[in-house]
């Protein structure tokens, strides 16, 4: 391998910054997208970002708790996806739309 101008060992902070960026992207998606499914996907993106930081921290602390937490996050995300998608199905069947702003009858 030719020698690279890069550190042979990656700083942990890079991983965390990556996860932060991904999280921010998820937030952005949540805020700017109007398709319910896309919003939902953005939520999943955020969850993934959080998982990354969990795992990186558990690397730092040399404990596997982070892995276990992110495992739980995944499982809960799976459950959430099942229910959420079912809800989306119902909403679509009742209102024939996936526009998140159409579904605003919860106010007042």
């Amino acid at each position: 391998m030719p020698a690279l101008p890069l550190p042979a060992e990656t700083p942990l902070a890079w991983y965390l910054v990556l996860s932060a960026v991904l999280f921010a992207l998820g937030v952005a998606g949540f805020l700017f997208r109007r398709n319910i499914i896309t919003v939902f996907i953005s939520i999943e993106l955020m969850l993934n970002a959080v998982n990354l930081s969990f795992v990186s921290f558990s690397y730092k602390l040399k404990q596997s708790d982070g892995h276990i937490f992110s495992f739980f996050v995944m499982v809960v995300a799976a459950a959430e996806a099942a229910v959420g998608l079912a809800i989306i199905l119902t909403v679509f069947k009742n209102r024939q739309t996936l526009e998140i702003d159409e579904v605003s009858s919860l106010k007042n």
Partner: protein
Amino acid sequence: MNTILFLILAVVAVGCGINVILQTHPISSALSLVGVMGALAVLYLQLGGEFIAAAQLIVYAGAVMVLFVFVIMLLNAGKEQKSRARIWVRWAGPPLLLLFVGAVAYVLEAALPPSPPVRFGGFDGGTVKAIGERLFTEYLLPFEVTSLLILIAIAGAIVLARKEID
């Protein structure tokens, strides 16, 4: 080597992440998210998380996202029409977002004590064995509770979905 891999994966992840929010069609977003997940899985491997990487692929990419794709295909969700300008979001959103990223990055910078750099194999607590042992000893109760949660979720999903079948 490690760093190169990280950079590649980071680029892939961020690219796919941006794609998630830029694509107008949900299915494109979903697949971009799958891309993110794949990249993350490899990153987990780098961080010594064998089990979590596999779980990431099996649970997330293999099950959850397939469910998403399935639903998108089922509803035959079309492209998202251009947002009619909700003005304050238009103007407040991006700077708010940048502020947010900045804040998070800053907090990381500030909060994180100097930590050892990542080497592949630098941490072996993430093997299936290790995770399994802890999961079934000290994390047993949460584990069981999670299974209960999933049961409830299944029931809920079935109820919701059934309601609009008949």
